[in-house]
């Protein structure tokens, strides 16, 4: 999992690279919360380009991270979500509070890799 941080925008992009299920979520939760408390970002983007599978455990995990990020005064967005995972997002209604953005290439160029977690 790769973390990219843009200090001037306080933007943290986390590229998740796992199949997200109950087993993986336990470890993801801890790692992601570590990074969030380390940078206290104003905005967090979860990049799903390398996520080939997700089930409802992922929804719970995202809602949990959303709460943490909001509590610290930041926003959460998602990008590069595949069709199957988007279907799960739509059924759950999560996109009403965590928006799906088209592209975040622009941030990737501005930011630097701050570590693989």
């Amino acid at each position, binding site marked *: 999992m790769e973390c990219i941080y843009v200090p001037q925008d306080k933007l943290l992009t986390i590229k998740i690279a796992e*199949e997200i*299920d*109950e*087993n993986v*979520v*336990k470890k993801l*939760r801890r790692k992601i919360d570590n990074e969030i408390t380390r940078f206290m970002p104003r905005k967090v983007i979860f990049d799903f380009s390398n996520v080939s*599978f997700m*089930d*409802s*455990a992922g*929804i*719970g*995990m995202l*809602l*949990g991270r959303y709460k943490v990020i909001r509590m610290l005064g930041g926003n959460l967005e998602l990008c590069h979500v595949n*069709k*199957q995972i988007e*279907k*799960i997002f739509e*059924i*759950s209604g999560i996109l009403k509070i965590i928006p799906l953005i088209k592209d975040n290439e622009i941030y990737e160029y501005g930011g630097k890799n701050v570590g693989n977690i």
Partner: protein
Amino acid sequence: MLGIYDNEMKLEFVSKSSNEAFARISVAAFASQLDPSIDELADIKTAVSEAVTNCIIHGYENTIGIVKVECKLKSNWIEIQVSDNGKGIEDIELAKRPLYTTKANLERSGMGFTIMESFMDELKIESIPNMGTKVTMKKYITPLDDKNNENMSIANQSKQKEGI
């Protein structure tokens, strides 16, 4: 065991969440005999993952037990039965309700049955408190010929649009 079905298989494994990936990948590999599309296969994987997760964290509440997965194939459908001998469900209708969860403290979303219901064509839940739960799901797979025809007609439509 063999009889009215074209093929059958049965898996049994210990209720560890590290077995979720094993279960969904095994079922997907078995289902691939029906030549499902990538979307159909992804639906099956997601539904199996939900059912198995339920056995592990709700049925056995993270204690050790046995999860059973049985699959039956017949020309254009697959039936998947996921069962446990765990604590069972008191009120099935309530459990099926979207966003209802007994484990909100564990960041569960309460979407498991909703996802199984919308990704599969049929869903049946049987449960006896303190005896166990059995979830039976069925998915119809579009035969390969129809898929080819669909692709052909899409190809023809785009050809017509381009004026070929």
